Every structure is written in C-alpha cells, then in structure tokens.
C-alpha cells in the first residue's frame, strides 16, 4: 500500500478501540508490555476509519 495508517506511540494508550473498528484482518497488533498498538502496514487500506474512532488522535494516515 502507498498509504497506511501510522501510530504515534507517544499518544497511544492501548485502549484497543481501533482494533475492533478496522474492517481489515490482522492490521493492528496489540503489544501488551508497552500497552499500545502496532500496524501491519501492508494490510491497511487507508480507509481512515480507525483515525475517526481514536480519542487520543494517535493515528494518522500517511
């Protein structure tokens, strides 16, 4: 994908709301130790849905 969502690790609080809002499988991976999410960029379709549900504005399409 040319565009993908990216996570601002400073802002993410690991609430997991983005994970259950993404229509694509296996895009978000939850890192329990760090309590934040990571993105598998090759699976993201850049729909922007997760960016609208993240209350911490930790996600950006770029």
């Amino acid at each position, binding site marked *: 994908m040319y565009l993908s969502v990216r996570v601002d690790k400073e802002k993410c609080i690991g609430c*997991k709301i983005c994970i259950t809002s993404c*229509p694509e499988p296996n895009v978000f*991976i939850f890192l329990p130790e760090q309590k934040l999410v990571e993105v598998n960029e090759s699976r993201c379709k850049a729909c922007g849905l997760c960016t*609208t549900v993240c209350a911490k504005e930790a996600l950006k399409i770029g």
Partner: protein
Amino acid sequence: MSKKIITPVASLAHILPEDYRDLVEKGPHGKSVGIKDLGSFKEITEEHPHCAGCGVSLGVRLALAALPAPEDTLVVGTPGCSFFALSQTAVNYSNTAFGNQNSVASGLKRMLSIRYPDKDKDVVVMAGDGGIADIGLDMTLHSWFRGEKISTIMLDNEVYGNTGGQESGMSPEGQVLHMAPKGKNFKKIPVFEMARTAGCVYGARVTIASPKRLGRAVNRAILLARELGPTYVQIYTPCPTNMKFSPADTIRIAKEAGSTHYAFEEFMTEEAALRIAVMEGEQGKIQD
C-alpha cells in the same frame, strides 16, 4: 476430534506458508479467546477484496472472532459481498447457490450430528440481507420452523452491494440507491420479528459499532443453537460504496442507526434465558 488437527507435522513445518504457521501458533483454535483479545491472536480472516471501510467485512471479522470453537465450526454462506471475506477465511466454509444457505446448513448439521455424536459441531450461516431476506427467505424460515440447531447471522448492509446497489428487502423505505433512484417504495422486511415467531430460541439485533455486544450475541446464539434450536443475529453492516458516505464514517453511520431503526434488542425463550445464566456463570468462573 482432537484440536491438534491443525498442528503441522514437525518435519514439514518449515515449508508451510507463513500465514498458516501464524494461524497455528497464534490462532484462536483450541483457546478461549474472543473479541476482547483481538489484536493479540491471529484472526481467522485473511486479506480480502472488500472496499476500504466496508461494514460487512468488519461484521465478518467481529463475528468470526466471537466463534466459541472455530476449530469445530462450519460456516455456510451464499454469494454477495459477505462471501468475499468468508471465502478467504481459515475456518471450514461452504458456499451455496444464492439463497440456499439455511437448507444446506440444516443438512450439514444433521450429517455432522450423526458422524460426530459425541462432539459439538457448530453450523453457522453467515450471509447478507439478499441471501436471507430475499431469495433465501423461505428456506431460512423453514429451517426455523423445523427447529434446526443452526445459528443464522445476517450481515445487513441494506443493499445489494456487489452488483451495483439494487434495493434489497432489508433496505429501509425511501432509501435512494444507485439502482433505486426514486427511493424504495416498500418497508424493510421484519426478519428479526419473524425469527421470533418462526421459532428461534434466541435473537439479537446489533450494529458493528458495539463490538462487545455483537460478540456476546454471536457467542450466545451459537451456544444456544447447540442445545436448544435455531438462533438468529442480525448485524447492521453499512456499505460506504453504495450509501455514498466516506469509508472513514462507517462506525458513525452504524452508531446513528443504533439510536434509530437498529436499536439493540434481544429476545429469548425462558429455557434459553436459564441456559444463558448457567453458561455465563460457568464462563465467569473459568475467567476468574
């Protein structure tokens, strides 16, 4: 049957595709995981060709994550947008001629009960509004009248998505669509109410904007169908492509529907309510 069915032969493990190894190592098979654990286990669905922001694909993803025993589940679908993701799903899946899914599922459930008398094999229909409410309505209703022990999950996007936006029986009255430019003339078919009348022991109406509630409804429906009879879950899965809203707004649209015509509702027989109390009490104990 042993859950080790998906354990690869050690000497061949290195030549298996990465996705398969991932599923074996991190998949939900044989574990007690659900929607709350998404992101920490390999999901059952693989990449799929749904449009960006598709509500149906999110519905499929959440419903699959709520299967109580994916290794012992057979999903039966029918053509439509729903089957794009389902046919690429690492769970036993059978497609049918359009609308036949509840008949095929009935037969498969009966066959599995004979073949595996001591094992719970869940048969779950997952299909769109076209397959269930339009061409397959008679077969769906008859499976309920007969008391087949299957769960039916409708992914209701209120339109024929993959054929360009014709009105479906489930489109709301007045809905303007690509191929219904003057708006639909008829009411949405009350399949949820029909499920109750036709003999489903449990029914729930939810939207993809409430993933935990959706997961609980799917889980309850499948466990109750194992023991008591047919169950039904109707999930609102809006389609950005045909409803012409931005893919980024799918959850907002689903939330809004949740406060109008898609308000959460559940029905259950008395027997089902007692069973739920026992099942969820036991699950609580296991989690503690």
